[in-house]
């Protein structure tokens, strides 16, 4: 391994958060091209199945993470689950924040139809979302954090699928419309419920 690749590997080991490519180049005192070569070298060394670690592109930077092969052993050694799964309420709240950020709690509540207070408190506590100033009405606004990107394996927010992908199909929409309006009319006409 070249000295530059060794230095970059050490920097990634020390950093708790993903490191931006520019910061790596500045710290290692090298040109962007040299750094790209060093990263390519590391990519080869960390090719899938080669090592117990992986080189991940997350949250706008580069980070070292463990290979899933070690998860079971890690759970035994550290006696704690990696990232507990989200409850449905937390996942919905997080999805709304991820796609609409910055977004206020009343707005989240409006979309969900139920209060999001406890879910947002948990998301804040777990560091998935953070405050992003206040709306013109004084409500606190929320946005997702780099930790969210990191733990969900996303490089940037742009790596999320477009929200349009979750739109109900025209058939489902027609079905809903039908149930809201026409089903009622038919009932009104018939005696059978």
């Amino acid at each position: 391994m070249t000295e530059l690749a060794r230095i970059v590997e050490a920097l990634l080991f020390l950093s708790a958060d993903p490191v931006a490519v520019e910061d790596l180049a500045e710290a290692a005192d090298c040109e962007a091209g040299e750094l790209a070569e060093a990263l390519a070298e590391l990519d080869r060394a960390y090719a899938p199945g080669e090592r117990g670690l992986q080189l991940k592109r997350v949250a706008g930077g580069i980070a070292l993470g463990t290979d899933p092969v070690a998860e079971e052993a890690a759970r035994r050694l550290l006696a704690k689950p990696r990232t507990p799964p989200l409850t449905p309420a937390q996942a919905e709240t997080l999805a709304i924040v991820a796609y609409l950020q910055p977004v206020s709690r009343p707005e989240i509540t409006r979309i969900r139809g139920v209060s999001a207070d406890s879910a947002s408190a948990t998301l804040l506590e777990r560091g998935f979302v953070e405050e992003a100033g206040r709306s013109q009405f004084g409500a606190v606004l929320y946005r997702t954090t780099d930790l969210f990107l990191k733990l969900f394996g996303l490089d940037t927010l742009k790596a999320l699928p477009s929200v349009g992908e979750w739109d109900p199909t025209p058939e489902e929409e027609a079905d809903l419309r039908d149930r809201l309006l026409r089903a009622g009319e038919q009932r009104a006409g018939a005696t059978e419920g």
Partner: protein
Amino acid sequence: MNAASLELDLDVFSGPFDLLLTLVLREEVDLLEVQLAEVVIAYLDHLHARGELDLEVATEFLVLIAALLELKSRMMLPRAEDDPLDLEPGEAAEELLARMLEARRYRRAAEHLSDRLAGEDGVRYRSAALPPALRRTTLADAGAVYDPRRLGTALAGLLRVPAQLNLGHVTVPTITVGERLTHLRKLLLRGGGCSFDEAVRGADRVTVAVTLFALLELYKQGEATWTQDEPFGAIEIAAFQRPARDRVFA
């Protein structure tokens, strides 16, 4: 079973929930007259009877009832003739539909995020603290990098009190607890008892509320007691019988 086919038996309507929705959206039933709390209670009864909770249906019901509540509260607010919020029945239906579609969209996005998190399961990151030598900016290295005015503006923001709601359009009633106490005592003296509905017949909302306070006051002072068989049922008020005195006057 979906939320739409919930059977309702309300004062102004009896039939399935989706029919009520249709009629409300076509303005054949006045939303202002529908007790949405009764709809919620009917739904809870229904859940209780079934003994199980279908989350899909429950979510749909919550979105619908929340949208109805919002529509209703908008109708209850005073508004100008050309208020853009003044919805036509067709628009109201479209808005309701849009709300349900939006809720559905984010529910699916949520599933995607949960799957994604599960898919990343097994990747752990290191969270060890930095070696001590690298940890914190030392006092010696620190320079003046922040502007103290940032603290002043933050404090000013915290001192700002939000604008008060303008309640100018609400007529301020001048009814007092004392007046309602007199009114209730008069009714009780006359017949020994009456229903709450009688006590507030023809009265506006605020008077009803103040009468309730007065009733609580009578109860506290041991002058009256009341019974109500079920939630939202009729309230019967009776003068409190003091056993000793009864015997004297009997």
